[in-house]
């Protein structure tokens, strides 16, 4: 994949038929990526179950089926880098290194939660690791990412920022204004559109004038890349390239990960706008199963190793839920704590 030239490119496999990522990452790193995807899946399934049992209130937006996009995009990042996330942000959070015990504690509204029980599922953040937060406002994180990149540039740091957002967000003004500023100031931002084909019930076909969101990159003179968002290797390849470009001071990239959300939009979705067949066709392309198959095919994973990964995820989830249950609840006297710094 080259950077310049036509605005939309598709990630092409290398001549040895393996995506570049296999030359870049070691086997333990690949296992770690797979484990993170499984952790995201099991975290969300367990949260869903706890919600159904009445242990969690409010609502939540599950990213089941989109794990490759979260993990693959964050693979090139480390703690000096930032992300901004969305209402569907559990995966981004875990991919950026959040601990699931503190995430569960947040869901349970407890003091040990990432937001001390004040934010809930839609606002999990971990600024110590560069996660500037999920967001309840569609598109809200996009200009914030641009701002973080501006700060990094002004301070001479080589940090980069990934702004995650959905296909729905690409019709908000914040998207267009944010991309333009990132481009004119050549800021180290990677705009990652997770195109799951719907903003709530509205398909991209009905909401968006262009077929590929990535073509909008042309309007802001930056590269736009369309990626199979359910294939970890492709997502990671595109992200590595964009991150390197950003670190070299060459400015932003717009990446569009084509993916699909298997669950409803939120807890109250009746799925009236799509068919069971459509959902099933995407379930058949499950990103976790695909990665397992691919690693196995390339001789990088045995079934014993896969089972061990899954078992360790189960232990982590069970311990995290226990941690969350026993964490203290906030005191009502502290209702207005943290509105201001002092």
């Amino acid at each position, binding site marked *: 994949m080259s950077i310049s030239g036509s605005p939309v490119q598709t990630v092409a496999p290398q001549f040895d038929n393996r995506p570049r990522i296999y030359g870049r990452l070691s086997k333990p790193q690949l296992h770690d990526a797979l484990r993170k995807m499984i952790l995201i899946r099991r975290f969300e399934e367990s949260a869903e179950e706890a919600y159904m049992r009445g242990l969690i*209130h*409010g*609502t939540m937006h599950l990213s089941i089926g989109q794990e490759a996009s979260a993990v693959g995009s964050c693979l090139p990042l480390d703690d000096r880098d930032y992300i901004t996330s969305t209402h569907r942000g559990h995966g981004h959070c875990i991919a950026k290194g959040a601990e699931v015990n503190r995430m569960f504690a*947040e869901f349970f*509204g*407890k003091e040990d939660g990432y*937001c001390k*029980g*004040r*934010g*809930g599922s*839609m*606002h999990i953040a971990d600024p110590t690791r560069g996660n500037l937060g999920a*967001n*309840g*406002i*569609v*598109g*809200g994180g996009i200009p914030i990412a641009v701002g973080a990149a501006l700060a990094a540039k002004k301070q001479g740091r080589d940090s980069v920022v990934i702004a995650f957002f959905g296909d*729905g*967000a690409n*019709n*908000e*003004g914040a998207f267009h204004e944010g991309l333009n500023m990132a481009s004119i100031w050549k800021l180290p931002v990677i705009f990652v559109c997770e195109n799951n084909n719907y*903003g*709530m*019930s*509205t398909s991209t076909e*009905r*909401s*968006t004038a262009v077929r590929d969101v990535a073509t909008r990159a042309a309007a802001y003179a930056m590269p736009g890349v369309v990626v199979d968002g359910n294939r970890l290797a492709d997502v990671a390849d595109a992200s590595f390239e964009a991150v390197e470009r950003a670190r070299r001071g060459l400015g932003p990239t717009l990446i569009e990960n084509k993916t699909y959300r298997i669950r409803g939009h939120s807890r*109250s*979705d*009746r799925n*009236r*706008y799509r068919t069971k067949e459509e959902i099933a066709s995407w379930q058949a392309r499950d990103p976790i199963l695909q990665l397992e198959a691919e690693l196995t095919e390339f001789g990088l994973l045995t079934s014993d190793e896969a089972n061990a990964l899954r078992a360790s995820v189960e232990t982590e989830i069970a311990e995290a839920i226990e941690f969350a249950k026993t964490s203290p*609840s*906030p005191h*009502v006297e502290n*209702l*207005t704590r943290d*509105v201001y710094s002092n």
Partner: protein
Amino acid sequence: MSTAIEAETAPDAGVRELSYAQALQEAMAIAMEADSRVFLMGEDIGVYGGAFQVTGDLVHRFGEDRVMDTPISELGGAGVAVGAAMAGMRPIYEFQFSDFATLAMEQIVNQAAKIRYMLGGSVSVPLVMRFPAGSGTGAAAQHSQSLEAWLAHVPGLKVVQPSTPHDAKGLLLAAIEDPDPVMIFEHKLLYKMKGPVPEGHYTVPIGKAEIRRPGRDVTIVANAIMVHRALEAAERLAARGIEAEVIDLRSLRPIDTATIIDSVKRTSRLICVYEGVKTLGIGAEISATIAESDAFDYLDCPIVRLGGAECPLPYNPELEKAAVPQTDTIFAAVSDMLANRI
């Protein structure tokens, strides 16, 4: 003037029990049947039926041309509604949550509210905007606000806030027929509440408060869900020999000062109960109305305001409850106020 919420509807008309959401939907259907200029815009109001199922299956009755799903573009969507209204249509624009009014403030405040006056009265903007508002659903800081006082601060807008299914239908029909922009705030916790609603067309006048319960000892002025909490508190107070008069504000702009002033002259005591943030809110306006009127001389004790806490709405359910007035809070405040009455 009626004395109870139920007694308000004419006994003869075909009166059924409808939910608040159904009553709103019926108002829109009646208006769309009667007037081909009326059409609906909003996010996921078509086949999804709206985030709170207010538009429900209207898309099947009236088609996608009159029940238009918009992209997630609040600023643009609000502006399109303004333009359509100026050019002869009667748009009803649904915000998915009232919090997203913040994205559209430009069009609401700078355009819709001012165009008629700025242009010397040569054109009107007959549009309706609907805002699902309020806390109590565990949706946290960006999906729980009560911003009605913001918009009520703007001359050129009218702002109404029905508390019953009856008024929801009547005020929405009045809003649709009004030649100027009307903002209707709908409390999310009221959508499922049922109450008597007459069949067919009727309106509730914009700018008229309603006495929901007569009483001699104290006037409680409340809006939206607070009307119901005030009525519950009043029942409990009655058992203690305290007769509270409960006024349902219903309209914030124009505000019905006459009904409030008259009531305070009879009761000599005033409590304002509202969910929006206490400081610089609705309570300040009502208190000042009394301070500036001849009712001031009738006051037996200081006015009390019960409003939302000075913080964003928290996720944790106990904190969330503590952040807005509850029945117990109102009961305690009135009890305190009357503890040493002579």
